[in-house]
C-alpha cells in the first residue's frame, strides 16, 4: 500500500482501527501511513519525546511537534520470540528489539529486526530503518547497516 499527500484524521483512524489513535499520537500514525517515522519533539528545548505525549518531560512545554527521525540507531536489547501466543500463529522465530535512536540517548523504539539472522544480532549493533508490509500496511522495521554504510550513527 502506498499513500501520497496528507491523510485526514478519519482515514488515519480507519487505517489503524485496532490501535488507540488519539490526539497525542495521531501524527505518528499519519506519518506511518505516509511511510515516514515521526517522533514527537519539544519545540522549545529540543527533547525527543517517546512514547507520544502532549508535553515535554524536561521543560513541560506544550509546544510539541512530530518530526521525522533519521532512522539510524543501535540495538539496546532484544529477544527472539520462538512462539506466538496464538497456537495458530506461524512458527517462525521473530526477533524483536528495542532500538536506541541516534537522535538522543535513551530514545528507544520497539521494532522487528529484518534482513538478519537472529543469531547474528548483537548488543549495540548499528541498524537503520526500513519498511515491511504486513496486513496491507507498511510498518517500520530495522536492518543491520552494512560496513560500507556505517558512520551515520553517533
Amino acid at each position, binding site marked *: 500500500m502506498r499513500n501520497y499527500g496528507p491523510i485526514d484524521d478519519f482515514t488515519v483512524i480507519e487505517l*489503524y482501527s485496532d490501535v488507540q489513535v488519539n490526539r497525542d499520537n495521531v501524527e505518528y500514525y499519519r506519518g506511518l501511513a505516509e511511510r515516514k517515522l515521526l517522533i514527537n519533539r519539544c519545540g522549545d528545548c529540543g527533547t525527543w519525546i517517546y512514547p507520544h505525549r502532549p508535553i515535554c518531560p524536561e521543560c513541560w512545554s506544550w509546544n510539541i511537534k512530530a518530526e521525522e527521525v533519521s532512522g539510524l540507531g543501535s540495538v539496546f536489547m532484544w529477544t527472539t520470540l520462538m512462539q506466538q501466543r496464538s497456537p495458530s500463529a506461524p512458527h517462525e522465530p521473530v526477533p524483536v528489539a528495542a532500538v536506541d535512536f541516534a537522535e538522543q540517548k535513551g530514545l528507544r523504539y*520497539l521494532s522487528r529486526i529484518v534482513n538478519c539472522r537472529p543469531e547474528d544480532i548483537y548488543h549495540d549493533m548499528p541498524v537503520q530503518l526500513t519498511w515491511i508490509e504486513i496486513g496491507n500496511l507498511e510498518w517500520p522495521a530495522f536492518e543491520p547497516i552494512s560496513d560500507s554504510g556505517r558512520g551515520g550513527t553517533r
Partner: protein
Amino acid sequence: MARNPLKDQLAVVGIGSTPYGRDLQRSHLSLGLEAAIAAIRDAGIDKNEIDGICGSGMTPLAQGGSGFLSLQGALGIDEITWGKNSWLGSCFVYAAETVFSGLSDMCLVVQTYVRDPGMSRSAHADPFRRNLTKFGDIGGDIGGSDFAKRWVHSGEPYAGWMRRYMHDYGVNKDAFAYLAVNSRSHGARNPAAVMQQPITLDDYHASRQIWEPMQMLDMDVPVDCAEAFVITTAERARDMTDKPVLIHAMSLGGTRVGEFYENSLPWTENAFWVTLKGLWARSELKLDDIDLFFPYDGYTIDGVGVTEAAGYCKPGECGDFFKDNWDEARQVLRLNGKCEVMTHGGGLGMGRAGGANYFSEAVRQMRGQEGARQIARVPEAALIAIGSFFHDPCAVVLRT
C-alpha cells in the same frame, strides 16, 4: 531514615487459599470467594467486621472478575468504608495503608489469578478464557497491529533484560537456574503446588526456548487460584491471637519509564531498586535479620533483580552468590547459613498468584503452621518483594 510511623502497628490476622490447578474451570469470582471465606474464618471474625476490601485486578470495576464491588455483594458484607482493586504485591500495601490511615479497621484482600489466554497457548484455545480478556484486564498484545506498542505491559522485555544482564556483567545463566531449581525443589515438597516434580540444573538449561534467551523454566506457571488476607491493627490482632504477624515496614516504588518498556532504565535503576531502597530506609530490621526471603519469580530475572536490589550481593554477582549459598543435598538456596527462599515453591513451583502466595506462606511459617514443611526454627522475620521492573513493585518486612 524515611518516616515509618506504621512500624509494627498492623497485623495479618487471616489467611485463605484455594486449591491450585491448571484448569479448575471456575470463574475469578468463584475462586476469590472461596479464598475470602477461608481468610475470614481463619481470622475468626464475623463477615460484617470487614469494612475494607481490596479486590483483584487493575480496573476500577473489574467486571466479570473478582473486584471489590462483586466481592462485597457476593459475600453479603453490608457496609464497607474503603474499596479498591489492585494486584501483585501492591494490593497488600494498599490494604495496610488504609487500615493505618483509619479508613478501614479490618481490611480483606482478595487476589485471584487464572491461566489467561495471554499466558499459554492451551489457555488461548479455551473460549471462556479468551472471553475474559474482552473485559479490559491487561492481557498482553494491547498494541493491536502496531508492533511498536508490543512492549506496553509486556513480559518480552524481561527476556531482553536477561541477555542484557548477562552481557553487561559477563555472566551466564547460573543465577536464573538456581532460582528455578530452588522453587521446584520446594514445590515438590508442597502438596498444594501444581508442579510436583523437582528439576535439575540440566533440566533448566534443556527447557524449551520461549522468548530466547528466556526459557520455559524461567517463567512462572499459569494456574487458576486465589489467595486472601485480613489485615487489621496490631492492637486488635493481640486480642485475636497470642502471636500476631506484624507488618514492620513496607514500600512501593516507581520510575519515569512509563508504559513502553523499551524505555528501560539501567539495571540498577529499575523500580525494584527504588522500592528496596525505600524499604531499608524505613525498616529497623535489616537483611541479616531476615529468615525467609520471597524474591518475585514471575520471571527468574525478577528474582535476580530483587536479590541484588535487596543487597544480598553486588549487581551482576547473583549467580556466584547463589552458587555459594546452595544446599546441594536439598537442592535449595539457604542464604548466609540461615535464610530460606521461596519455601512453598513460589510462582515457578506452586503456581502464579502474582506473589500473593508469598504472604500466605510467610504468615503460616511464622505462625509455625506448616506441618511437615515447617522450618524447624520458626522464622521471625520475612522479606517479600513483588512486582515489576516497570510498575507497582512492593517490598514488605513481616515480623512476629
